[in-house]
């Protein structure tokens, strides 16, 4: 697959934006400037970016508790995301959702979700609507390895397969569900094998390799868009940090395991590749990185200065009132 130089750089930029967004989100949480639980996407950037770069602006995604990366990849604005983390009125959710419920319906981002696997039935519904409305939008459902053990996942994939709904199930297998290794939770080594239970394609992908993700996602998206029905993409990846925040100290992970995956940092790999291909010089890459850092610092400053929600916001948005 041909990727233009410009596109390669944009994808690097997107990964950097996600990384720098979350590194800061982690620190803000540690400083108690951000409340609630922040689940970091660090290490998994190639998946969100590789998949969302295969989508159109009018396509949809559903996300998870670990959703910042999906939002940014689908066009979410870090300013409004930080504002939401800061519980400000101009956050995407007006301060009422926080990290676990970040959503931007106008960008096709149906939302993060605090309930493991709950996005799968919702993604099914969104994809069903695209068939119903006879548009050619597709829906991507992101979820973790652990989520594939919830009944919701199973029911949704089965129904999607039956309806040939235009949905791509993207499993981010990061080796853990909270503090439990995947192998102790999930009865198959390759979650892609679960596709066989639904008669749909299942593919194992190196989730640290942006090009691999992008290519596989492109195929699945094309299939879904042309009426070929759902696919299951399993992206093997790694959670660089702890389940929530950077280090809770609950789980001792093997330092060798960490080192192995850190060496396969998707951003590092992609940057090296672009440098090798001569797409970007090391100096350019550093400058790009610095500009992303600047963007995030500015976004935090902007968000921090936003107003709080009105206290009466507590009582609004419970119901939709009839138009007057």
């Amino acid at each position, binding site marked *: 697959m041909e990727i233009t130089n410009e596109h390669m750089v944009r994808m690097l930029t997107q990964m950097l934006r996600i990384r720098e967004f979350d590194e800061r989100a982690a620190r803000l949480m540690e400083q108690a400037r951000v409340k609630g639980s922040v689940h970091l996407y660090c290490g998994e950037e190639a998946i969100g970016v590789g998949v969302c770069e295969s989508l159109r602006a009018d396509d*949809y995604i*559903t996300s998870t508790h670990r959703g910042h990366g999906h939002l940014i990849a689908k066009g979410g604005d870090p300013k409004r995301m930080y504002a939401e983390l800061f519980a400000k009125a101009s*956050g*995407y*959710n*007006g*301060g*009422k*959702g926080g990290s676990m*419920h970040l*959503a*931007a*319906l*106008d960008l096709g981002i*149906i*939302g993060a*979700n*605090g*309930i493991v696997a*709950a996005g*799968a*039935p*919702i*993604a*099914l*519904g*969104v*994809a*069903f*609507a*695209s068939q*119903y*409305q006879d548009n050619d939008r597709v*829906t991507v459902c992101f979820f973790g390895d652990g989520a594939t053990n919830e*009944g*919701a996942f199973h*029911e*949704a994939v*089965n*129904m999607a397969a*039956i309806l040939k709904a235009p949905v791509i199930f993207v499993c981010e297998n990061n080796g853990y569900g909270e503090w439990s290794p995947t192998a102790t939770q999930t009865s198959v080594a390759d979650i892609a094998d679960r596709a066989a239970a639904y008669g749909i394609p299942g593919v194992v992908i190196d989730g640290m390799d942006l090009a691999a993700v992008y290519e596989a996602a492109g195929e699945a998206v094309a299939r879904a868009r042309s009426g070929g029905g759902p696919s299951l993409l399993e992206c093997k990846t790694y959670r660089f940090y702890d389940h929530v925040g950077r280090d809770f100290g609950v789980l001792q992970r093997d330092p060798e395991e960490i080192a192995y995956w850190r060496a396969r940092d998707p951003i590092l790999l992609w940057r090296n590749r672009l440098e090798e291909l001569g797409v970007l010089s090391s100096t350019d890459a550093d400058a790009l990185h610095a500009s992303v850092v600047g963007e995030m610092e500015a976004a935090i400053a902007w968000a921090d200065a936003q107003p709080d929600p009105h206290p009466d916001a507590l009582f*609004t*948005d*419970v*119901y*939709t009132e*009839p138009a007057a």
Partner: protein
Amino acid sequence: MSVKTMTAAVNEAIDQEMARDERVFVAGEDVRVGGPFGTEAGLHAKYGDKRIVNTAISELALTGIGVGAAAVGLRPIIEIMIMDFVTVAMDQIVNQMAKMKYMLGGQATLPIVVTTHAGVDSSSAAQHSGSLEAWFCHVPGLKVLMPSNAYDAKGLLTAAIRDDNPVIFISNKRCLQTSCEVPDEPFALPLGVAEVKREGRDLTIVATGRLVIDALDVAETLAGQGISVEVIDPRTLSPLDMDTILASVRKTSRAIVAHEAVRTCGIGAEIAARISDEAFDYLDAPVKRVGAPFTPVPFAPLLEDRYLPGKAQILDAVREIGLTT
């Protein structure tokens, strides 16, 4: 106007709203053949697979179809065959559908109707006889309806389908075969408005579903003894129309609340607590509650009969508050 069963009225409401609005569709188990109670009879022939979506036995996924589709502009009707089966769909109903608008700071509008069939019905036993409306009345973001006759069923369901919020529409099974005059044209009743089914002076009975019929029977019986009973059907259980209920109790000074669900923590507790609080100075007697005993629903018809609250239990309550001896 013509005489229709509640089943037919429900069917007609769905049919007419589907005809009226392309965005309305039904998803559920065996809806293709009309659903287990016939509420979708004939609709598949008319609207086809696209709009009468016969799903797998996957209540969580099928409810998710509703949530996802509504979030992007459709108006789903989601049928959960029997109310006890909501237990496998609670996450999508409670954590997603009910909360999404709020969690998203208002971004989402979720015009979903979840229809289901509740209550005891000829020895269906403990897993097919539940009345769980109180659970949903405890969940902000949902509206909860329970009509007691065909007319209300059509009007309320029509309004529910047109409403922009998630609505749980509960048919009490023992009402489905009752019939009355129902307009043939589409019509919507306002949600959140109770109806005085019979006026009276001495006692207010607030009843839901089948118990409305029982309460009207009791009112008739007591009229013969010179006791004048007002019967109120809230119809919408969430939000409750307390104004109508309180106005009545302030007039009669006595109230009984009656439903088929288990009495403890049933919707009757909320209504009784509010009457007792908000009409405190008007009450001449304690507010009594009629509901099922604190047991699962037994299979044996003999036990089921004893389980089911009805006329006798309401009359007991009337006696307890000293209106009869």
